[in-house]
C-alpha cells in the first residue's frame, strides 16, 4: 500500500478500530460484570481490546499533533490560527479537568476513609461484644438448666424417661431432647416435630467432653439466620459405671429477636470486614480509574480540540489559499461553503468576487486575443509584403519593421526590439547607412511626408528605391513616421531590357536593309572606277570603298548582334553532356590563344542536361571570350571553368562557373553588366553578356556576375537539368525574384 492510500484509509481504519475496540471492551465488561466466571475468562480480551482502543486513539492523536506541528513548522496558511485555537481549547479543557481531578481524588480518599472510621469499627465491636454477652448469658443459662435437668434424669429409663423428656421440652420450648447411651446411640428422644425422626449424630467433641464429666454447650448458626444452642450434660446414674456415660443433649432455639439482632451484627461485621479488606486497593482502584478516565477524557478532548480547530479554521485556510490563487491569476477558484453563518457569507462574497474577476479577466483575455490576432494578421501582411515598411520616430528609434525592409536594405531586424536605434542595424552596411543618412536628413529638415526615388550604392551595384514617408496619425505629436519603400532596380532593368529589345528590332529592321545596297554600291564603285583612275586617286578610292565596306560589315555585325538580341526565342532542346560541350569549346579556345590557360574543373557526376546545345555553346563562347579579352596582355592569364550540380527547392540545376584572374568588372558597371551597351572593354558592342543573359533566361535559368575577392571576375550560370526541373526552378526563381524585387 502506498503512502497516499495509507493516508486515505489509515485514519478511518484507526478511528473505526478505536471505536470498535472501545465498544467491544464495554460490551464484554458489561456482560461479564454479572458473571464473575465470565469476567475471569474474558479479562484478557477486555484488556486487549481496551489496549487496542487506547493505542488507536493514541496513534490518531499523535498523528494529529504531528500534522499540527508540521503545518506550524512549514508556515502553512492557517496553521498558527489552528495552533492558537487548539491551545485555547486545550487550556479551557485541561485546567478545569485537572481541578476536578484533584478534587475528585481528595473526595475519593476522604469518602472511602469515612467508611472505615474508628467509631464504626468500635461500634461494630461493641455490638459484637454485646451480642456475644447476650448469647453467652443465654448459653450459660441453658447449660445450667441442662445440668439440672440431667441430674433429674438420674436412674430414669423407659417411659418415665420419655415422659420426663417431653415435660422438660414443653417447659423449656426446646426443639429436641435426646438421651444418648454409652455407645453413642440415642436411647430416648423428644422432639417438637410431629414426625419422629432419627436424631443426627452428636458432634465428636460432645461425647468426649461429657465423658470427662463436663457439660457441653455450643451456639450454632442456621442457614435461615436463626441460632440454636446445643447443650449436653452427663446423667449421673447411681447404679453402675456404665450408666454414668449416659448424657442428655438438648437443642434450644434462640429467641427470634435475639437471633435477628445477632445475625444483623454478624452480617454487618462480615460486610465491614469485606470492605475493610479492600480499603486500600479500593482507593487505588478508584484513583486509578479516575486517572484513566481523566486521561482518556483529556486525550479525547485534545483530539476533539484539534479536530474542532481544524474544522473551524478550514474556511480561513481555504480563503487564504483562494486569495493566493487569485493573486496568481487563477480566477476559477471557488471555495466550498462551510455553513450559512458569517464565515459562509465571507466565503460567498469571495466566490462572487472571483466570479466577477474571472468574467473581467475573460473579457480582457478576449480583447487581448483580438488585438493579438489583428497584430498577427498585420505581421503576416507585412511579412508577405514585397514592400519594405519601417516605423520609426524622429530619433530614428525603431518601432517595427518587416522582413522585406531588412532584405531590401541588406540588414536584419531579427534581434530588433522596439526602441532600438536603427543605426545599430546599419553598421557596416553601405546601403542601409545611405538609406539612414537620407532619412535622417529629411526628418531633421522637418519633412515628414514625401514620395521619391532613391539610389543606394552597394557592393553588388546600385539599388534604386521608390520610398515614401507618412507621419502616423496618432504619433504626429511624438514624431512617429512610417517609411514605405520598394526596390525598383529590377523593374527599371526590365524596362531597359524592353526598350533595348525595341531598339534592336528597329535597328534590325530599319538599318540592316540599307546596309547591303551600300556595301554593293561601294564595291561596284570600286570595281568600275578603280581601273580608270590614276594611282593616287585609285588609292584614295580604294581606301574609301574599303572603309565603307568595312564599316558596313561592322554595322552588319552590330545589327546582327542586335538582331540576335532581339530575336524571338526558338530553342531546340535535346539532352547532351554539358561537360563534353565545355571541354570541346575550351579546346577550341586553347588552340586559338595558347598563352591563356584554360583550366577545367568538371563534376563527373553532373548529369546530361536538356537544353539547346547551340545556344549553350554560344553562352560558353561569349563567357570564355569575355574572359580571354579581359586577360589580354596579362602574363599568367587563366580562365577557370567548373561545373557542379546543385539542388534547390526540388529543382536540379547545373551550375557553370567562369572565372578569370583579370581586373574584374568595374565597380560602376557591376550592377548593370547584363544591360545592352554596358561594357568594360574599349572595343565591344556591350551585347555579349546581355545576349548570354537572355539565352540563360530562355532556358529558365539564372546568371550572376561578381568580382572575386582575390581579383578577377566571376560569372555563375544556373541551368535547369531537365524540363521538369525548369518548371520547379522557375517557381523557385519566381520566389527568388520576388525577394529580389523586394530587394
Amino acid at each position, binding site marked *: 500500500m502506498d503512502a497516499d492510500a495509507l493516508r486515505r484509509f489509515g485514519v478511518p481504519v484507526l478511528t473505526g478500530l478505536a471505536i470498535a475496540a472501545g465498544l467491544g471492551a464495554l460490551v464484554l465488561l458489561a456482560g461479564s460484570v454479572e458473571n464473575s466466571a465470565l469476567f475471569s475468562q474474558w479479562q484478557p480480551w477486555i484488556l486487549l481490546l481496551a489496549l487496542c482502543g487506547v493505542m488507536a486513539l493514541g496513534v490518531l492523536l499523535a498523528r494529529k499533533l504531528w500534522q499540527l506541528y508540521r503545518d506550524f513548522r512549514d508556515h502553512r496558511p492557517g496553521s498558527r490560527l489552528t495552533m492558537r485555537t487548539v491551545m485555547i481549547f486545550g487550556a479551557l479543557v485541561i485546567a478545569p479537568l485537572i481541578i476536578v481531578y484533584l478534587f475528585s481524588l481528595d473526595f475519593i480518599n476522604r469518602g472511602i476513609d469515612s467508611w472505615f472510621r474508628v467509631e464504626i469499627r468500635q461500634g461494630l465491636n461493641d455490638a459484637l461484644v454485646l451480642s456475644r454477652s447476650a448469647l453467652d448469658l443465654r448459653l450459660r443459662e441453658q447449660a445450667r438448666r441442662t445440668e439440672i435437668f440431667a441430674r433429674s434424669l438420674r436412674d430414669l429409663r423407659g417411659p418415665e424417661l420419655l415422659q420426663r423428656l417431653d415435660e422438660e421440652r414443653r417447659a423449656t420450648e426446646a426443639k429436641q431432647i435426646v438421651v444418648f447411651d454409652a455407645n453413642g446411640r440415642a436411647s430416648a428422644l423428644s422432639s417438637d416435630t410431629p414426625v419422629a425422626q432419627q436424631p443426627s449424630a452428636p458432634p465428636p467433641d460432645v461425647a468426649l467432653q461429657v465423658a470427662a464429666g463436663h457439660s457441653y454447650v455450643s451456639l450454632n448458626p442456621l442457614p435461615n439466620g436463626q441460632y440454636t444452642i446445643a447443650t449436653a450434660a452427663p446423667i449421673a446414674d447411681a447404679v453402675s459405671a456404665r450408666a454414668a456415660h449416659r448424657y442428655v443433649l438438648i437443642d434450644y432455639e434462640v429467641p427470634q429477636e435475639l437471633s435477628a439482632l445477632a445475625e444483623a451484627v454478624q452480617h454487618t461485621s462480615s460486610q465491614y470486614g469485606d470492605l475493610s*479488606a479492600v480499603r486500600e486497593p479500593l482507593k487505588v*482502584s478508584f484513583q486509578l480509574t479516575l486517572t484513566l478516565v481523566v486521561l482518556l477524557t483529556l486525550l479525547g478532548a485534545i483530539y476533539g480540540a484539534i479536530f474542532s480547530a481544524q474544522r473551524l479554521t478550514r474556511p480561513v485556510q481555504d480563503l487564504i489559499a483562494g486569495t493566493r490563487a487569485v493573486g496568481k491569476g487563477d480566477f476559477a477558484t471557488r471555495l466550498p461553503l462551510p455553513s450559512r453563518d458569517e464565515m459562509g457569507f465571507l466565503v460567498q462574497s469571495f466566490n462572487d468576487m472571483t466570479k466577477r474577476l474571472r468574467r473581467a479577466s475573460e473579457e480582457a483575455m478576449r480583447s487581448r486575443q483580438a488585438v493579438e490576432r489583428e497584430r498577427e494578421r498585420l505581421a503576416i501582411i507585412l511579412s508577405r509584403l514585397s514592400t519594405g515598411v519601417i516605423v520609426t520616430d524622429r530619433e530614428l528609434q525603431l518601432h517595427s519593421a518587416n522582413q522585406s525592409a531588412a532584405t531590401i536594405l541588406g540588414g536584419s531586424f531579427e534581434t530588433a526590439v522596439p526602441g532600438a536605434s536603427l543605426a545599430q542595424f546599419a553598421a557596416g552596411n553601405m546601403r542601409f547607412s545611405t538609406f539612414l543618412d537620407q532619412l535622417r536628413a529629411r526628418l531633421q529638415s522637418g519633412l515628414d511626408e514625401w514620395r521619391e526615388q532613391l539610389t543606394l550604392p552597394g557592393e553588388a551595384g546600385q539599388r534604386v528605391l521608390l520610398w515614401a514617408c507618412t507621419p502616423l496619425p496618432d504619433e504626429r505629436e511624438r514624431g512617429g513616421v512610417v517609411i514605405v519603400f520598394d526596390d525598383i532596380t529590377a523593374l527599371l532593368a526590365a524596362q531597359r531590357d524592353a526598350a533595348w529589345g525595341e531598339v534592336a528590332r528597329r535597328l534590325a529592321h530599319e538599318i540592316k536593309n540599307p546596309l547591303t545596297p551600300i556595301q554593293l554600291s561601294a564595291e561596284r564603285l570600286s570595281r568600275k572606277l578603280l581601273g580608270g583612275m590614276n594611282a593616287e586617286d585609285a588609292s584614295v578610292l580604294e581606301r574609301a570603298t574599303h572603309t565603307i565596306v568595312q564599316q558596313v560589315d561592322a554595322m552588319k555585325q552590330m545589327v546582327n548582334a542586335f538582331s540576335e538580341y532581339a530575336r524571338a526565342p526558338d530553342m531546340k532542346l535535346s539532352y547532351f553532356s554539358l561537360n563534353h560541350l565545355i571541354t570541346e569549346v575550351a579546346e577550341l579556345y586553347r588552340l586559338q590563344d595558347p598563352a591563356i590557360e584554360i583550366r577545367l574543373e568538371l563534376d563527373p557526376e553532373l548529369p546530361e542536361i536538356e537544353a539547346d546545345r547551340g545556344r549553350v555553346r554560344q553562352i560558353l563562347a561569349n563567357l570564355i571570350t569575355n574572359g580571354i579579352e579581359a586577360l589580354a596582355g596579362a602574363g599568367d592569364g587563366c580562365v577557370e571553368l567548373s561545373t557542379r550540380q546543385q539542388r534547390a527547392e526540388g529543382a536540379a540545376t547545373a551550375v557553370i562557373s567562369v572565372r578569370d584572374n583579370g581586373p574584374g568588372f568595374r565597380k560602376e558597371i557591376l550592377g548593370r553588366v547584363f544591360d545592352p551597351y554596358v561594357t568594360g572593354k574599349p572595343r565591344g558592342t556591350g551585347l555579349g553578356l546581355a545576349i548570354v543573359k537572355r539565352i540563360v533566361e530562355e532556358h529558365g535559368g539564372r546568371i550572376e556576375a561578381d568580382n572575386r575577392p582575390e581579383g578577377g571576375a566571376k560569372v555563375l550560370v544556373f541551368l535547369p537539368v531537365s524540363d521538369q526541373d525548369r518548371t520547379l526552378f522557375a517557381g523557385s526563381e519566381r520566389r527568388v525574384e520576388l525577394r529580389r524585387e523586394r530587394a
Partner: protein
Amino acid sequence: MALLAWPLATAPGLAAGPLDGDFEVRSAFIVVDRGVLQLNAHVQYPVNDLIRGALQDGVTLAFDLDLIISHRRRFWLNAHMLDMTLRRELTYHTVTDHYVLRNENGEEQESVPTLEEALDKLGRIEGLPILVASQLKGEGPWQVAVRAGVRRGRMSDAMRALMFWSDDWHRTSEWYAWTLTL
C-alpha cells in the same frame, strides 16, 4: 484502565499472596454407582494466618471445583460432555466463633470450630453425583479434568471488575486429568 492495570497485575513482585502454599488436587476419581457417576476428590488447600486473619476480619472465601468431561475427536475440537463447577463458601462467624461452610445457594450449611477442619471438609468431596452414565455420548474413553480454585467471595461483581488488577485473593490449581473408561 487496562493500560496501567496490565503491568501492575503481571508484576512479578506482586505475585506473592495469601493463597500461596500447597494448593493442588491430590487425587480424584469417578465411581459409577447404579448408573450414576460420582466424583471423589481430595484437594489440598493452603492454610496460613493470612487466610485466618482475613476470614476473622470478615472476608468470605469461595471454593470452586471445576470438572470437565470431554470426548476426544479427531480433526476437531473435543466434545464436552460435562462442564460443571461445585461452588462453596467459607466464612468466619464472629458471633459464634465458628467457621461456616455453605454451598452456593446457602441451603446447606455447616459450622466447625477451626479453620483446619473447615478446609479439610472443603477438600474432601465424596460421592458427588455428577452425571448419569447414559448421558455420556460416544464410545469411551473420556477425558476427565478437575481443578480447584479459591477466590474472594461475597464481593459484588462491579467491585470485582473495579479491583481485578489488584485482587490477589484468586488462585486456581493445575488441572488434574485422567481417562475415564466405563
